[in-house]
């Protein structure tokens, strides 16, 4: 990426932060909080997620067979099924159906799939009037904008925005001011159009193969009206929406509204097996009976392939097809919460899962625009009702983009010099961050000179220009004596124990930059009677993985496992300070290593405070740790939260009598390299401001964070020293 491209990207993000950020933030965080509450009250949540996941896996596996079952059912009901290869095919078919119905007017309910094929434009080109009847979509139709969210397409707009828009566009006698006035106007305006329409078009959230049923999940009631008022009903949806039968629908009804908006169930969950036996409605003659029981209904189900069947064959993209379009991945994403779908989205789809959808249906170049906005924080992993590993899809697509990019003019500088497994044409910025371990090693060997050089303005200028490393960020300061060297120099372990040996994993940051927290961890563990070893072990591969450098990460994963195997075989536990590295061992390595190697490492690795908690539970003396009467403000780490480990740190603090307040934001906004990148610096700081605000009243407390990135971000935000929990607990304060 050139520095011009970076500047353009930064400017676009800045503009969206200023214009849409506030409304997007309010609405997505509201949905997200409601989702947390709904899930907490839903006892069977995990079991139902597993059930839904299994049904989708099976349905996609059996898709060709289900399509044929569905065809029979729809035809038996008296409707027609059409499978469209692509957008043009779908639009041609829909155009013919509308034409045959003598249709001048089509009314639609909300459907992302019809956004994908741009059916409105296709119909309008044939002089058909098309009306969006979902109020959010109607706002966008008037504004001529694209949806910014899968569920709330216009949630980037406030009431005032919409009032201004409608006042200009419709020029009412009395200007609109309130949401009630706008809603009433839109309802009446669209009500007239629904009653006069020739064709109603809906999407379908789920399609049941053995009964020919479409399921529509809505809150307004417009989809019901569009489906039953006009004589002709066209339902357009993706071919992946098919479930075998009604008996499979339960978990999805239980999950979709909870995941989307935190409602237990949506206002209307319609199951229509059209043509339905509802009478057709005739509003043309006011005196005539409204219900024409002998009227003819016609129904067309248009299933769109448009790349989906190829996604089904693509091992990495396949699980995108399990998506039920609830938007939880967007609502739980810190970057999305701040900038919204007009930055975090491609041609059609928005949010974390959009990378999968865009790559599959619109092409990988559409995903290129926004893929980097996924920081891999993994908060969406627990939010997804069908357990899609969304960060992994983002990583895979990033890796494919790395291999796709045009050769850089600096290839000659790079090739042969870097220790990674990636192609020469890899973006320099990604290469730099992905190989942070190499930089740290060299930096440490030559510190403090390396730090002076890195801090000098000509070098920072060059780093900004060539690699997009923002000059407003302070670079990590490398330590001459690494943790591994310090440990060897002190003569290794000070405690000998026959019961418990821990290998303290020297992650790259702890080893070369934040050495104090490593020493504190040794101190804490030894105070609790644990024999500690710190061997020289390579980086976990987190840095390259975050840049989409999967081959490099895989090679690191193998090296780490090979190095640690002998200790695990000898009965040692692996203790990890940095949560993002533990997440590699416990989550990401599953994708990078053979199952047995992954199981071995994941089952024997612990986050350091999780380990301390276990030691205390098993009788270690809490008195051995520092319980100085200090007040703390603690920020857990996004990946630590996904793994459910934040509670251990809080429990240990509580046990030792600390007075602690905790943050509840999804992510600090730094996310490893993300906050260093000049195109994302402002977004990173904007995301961080939410965290900063939570601790703004905590100036009298010691700020504590588990992750390196979080510490850096909090240091920048609060201009305050930030400590790791082990530094608080270490008996002599270090």
């Amino acid at each position: 990426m050139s520095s011009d491209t970076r500047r353009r990207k930064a400017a676009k993000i800045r503009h969206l932060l200023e214009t849409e950020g506030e409304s997007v933030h309010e609405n997505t965080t509201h949905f997200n909080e409601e989702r947390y509450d709904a899930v907490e009250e839903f006892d069977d949540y995990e079991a139902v997620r597993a059930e839904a996941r299994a049904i989708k896996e099976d349905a996609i596996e059996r898709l060709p067979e289900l399509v044929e079952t569905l065809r029979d059912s729809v035809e038996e009901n008296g409707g027609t099924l059409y499978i469209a290869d692509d957008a043009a095919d779908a639009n041609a078919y829909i155009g013919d159906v509308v034409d045959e119905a003598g249709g001048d007017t089509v009314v639609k309910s909300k459907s992302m799939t019809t956004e994908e094929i741009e059916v409105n434009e296709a119909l309008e080109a044939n002089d058909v009037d098309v009306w969006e009847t979902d109020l959010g979509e109607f706002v966008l139709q008037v504004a001529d904008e694209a949806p910014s969210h899968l569920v709330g397409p216009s949630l980037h707009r406030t009431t005032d925005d919409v009032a201004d828009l409608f006042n200009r566009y419709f020029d009412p006698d009395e200007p609109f001011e309130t949401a009630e006035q706008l809603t009433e106007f839109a309802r009446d305006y669209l009500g007239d159009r629904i009653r006069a329409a020739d064709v109603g078009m809906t999407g379908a959230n789920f399609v049941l193969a053995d009964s020919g049923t479409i399921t529509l999940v809505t809150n307004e009631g417009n989809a019901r009206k569009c489906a039953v008022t006009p004589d002709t009903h066209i339902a357009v949806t993706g071919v992946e929406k098919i479930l075998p039968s009604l008996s499979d629908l339960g978990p999805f009804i239980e999950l979709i509204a909870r995941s989307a908006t935190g409602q237990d169930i949506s206002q209307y969950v319609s199951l229509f097996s059209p043509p339905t036996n509802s009478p057709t409605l005739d509003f043309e003659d006011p005196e005539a009976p409204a219900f024409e029981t002998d009227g003819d209904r016609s129904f067309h189900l248009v299933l769109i392939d448009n790349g989906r069947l190829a996604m089904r064959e693509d091992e990495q993209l396949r699980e995108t097809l399990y998506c039920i379009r609830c938007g939880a991945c967007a609502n739980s994403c810190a970057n999305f919460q701040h900038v919204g779908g007009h930055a975090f989205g491609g041609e059609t789809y928005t949010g974390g899962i959009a990378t999968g959808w865009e790559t599959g249906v619109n092409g990988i170049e559409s995903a290129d625009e926004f893929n980097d906005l996924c920081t891999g924080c993994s908060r969406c992993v627990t939010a997804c009702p069908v357990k899609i590993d969304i960060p992994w899809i983002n990583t895979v697509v990033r890796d494919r983009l790395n291999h796709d990019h045009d050769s850089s003019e600096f290839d000659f500088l790079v090739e042969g010099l870097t220790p990674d497994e990636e192609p020469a044409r890899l973006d320099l910025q990604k290469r730099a961050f992905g190989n942070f371990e190499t930089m740290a090693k060299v930096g440490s060997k030559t510190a403090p000179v390396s730090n002076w050089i890195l801090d000098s303005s000509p070098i920072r200028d060059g780093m900004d220009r060539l690699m997009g490393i923002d000059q407003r960020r302070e670079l990590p300061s490398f330590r001459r004596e690494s943790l591994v060297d310090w440990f060897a120099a002190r003569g290794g372990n000070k405690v000998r124990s026959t019961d418990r040996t821990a290998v303290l994993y020297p992650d790259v940051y702890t080893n070369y930059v934040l050495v104090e927290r490593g020493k504190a961890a040794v101190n804490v563990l030894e105070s609790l009677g644990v024999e500690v070893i710190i061997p020289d072990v390579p980086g976990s591969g987190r840095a390259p993985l975050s840049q989409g450098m999967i081959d490099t990460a895989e090679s690191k994963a193998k090296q780490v496992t090979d190095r640690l195997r002998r200790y695990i075989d000898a009965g040692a536990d692996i203790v990890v300070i940095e949560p993002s590295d533990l997440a590699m061992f416990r989550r990401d390595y599953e994708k990078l290593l053979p199952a047995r190697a992954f199981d071995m490492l994941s089952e024997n690795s612990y986050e350091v405070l999780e380990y301390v908690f276990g030691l205390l539970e098993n009788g270690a003396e809490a008195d051995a740790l520092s319980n100085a009467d200090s007040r703390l403000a603690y920020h857990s780490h996004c990946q630590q939260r996904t793994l459910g480990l934040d509670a251990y740190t809080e429990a240990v603090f509580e046990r030792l009598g600390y007075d602690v307040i905790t943050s509840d934001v999804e992510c600090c906004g730094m996310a490893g390299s993300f906050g260093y990148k000049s195109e994302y610096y402002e977004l990173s700081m904007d995301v961080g401001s939410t965290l900063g605000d939570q601790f703004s009243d905590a100036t009298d407390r010691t700020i504590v964070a588990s992750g390196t990135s979080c510490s850096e971000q909090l240091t920048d935000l609060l201009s305050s020293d930030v400590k790791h929990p082990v530094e608080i607990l270490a008996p002599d304060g270090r």
Partner: protein
Amino acid sequence: MATNVVAAFESSLGTLDVPCMSTTPDGFIEALTEYIELPAVGVPLGIEGISLEETDATLSPSSQQLVDAKTGITPAALGVAAHGSLLLQSSPTGTEPVSLYPPRHVAVVREGDIVPDVRDALEWLDGEFTDGRRSAVFATGVSATGDMGALVEGVHGPADVRVIIVEDR
């Protein structure tokens, strides 16, 4: 058990701000009179012992009557206790439009047709599907939208929903 389910249903309706009352078949007309605003349209209830014949509700309305109606009266095949949902089965007599177009919907459900949760309702519906009645809507509370920047009730569907539970003999 059955009483608990009815109580749960009533409690869920309460959370949704949906008024509800229980009545014997004999008290039905009186209960209905309290809940409807005229003009009203309705569909045959198909519930033994009660009927809309002697009420002011218009069955088989003209299109103008449907548009002008202040209340629509329909049966609900089931009530779902967990959420206060009403299962409205599509019918040739117009349950779908009558429950949808007028600003107030009054649903009539037999006490014995209240089930604990959505899974139970789907199980019952499975039998209906087998018998060819394959269209129905779970309607929960009033229609609503947040699309104009704040929550507004009463969009394309009713802004006012009321439930009459008819006690079993």
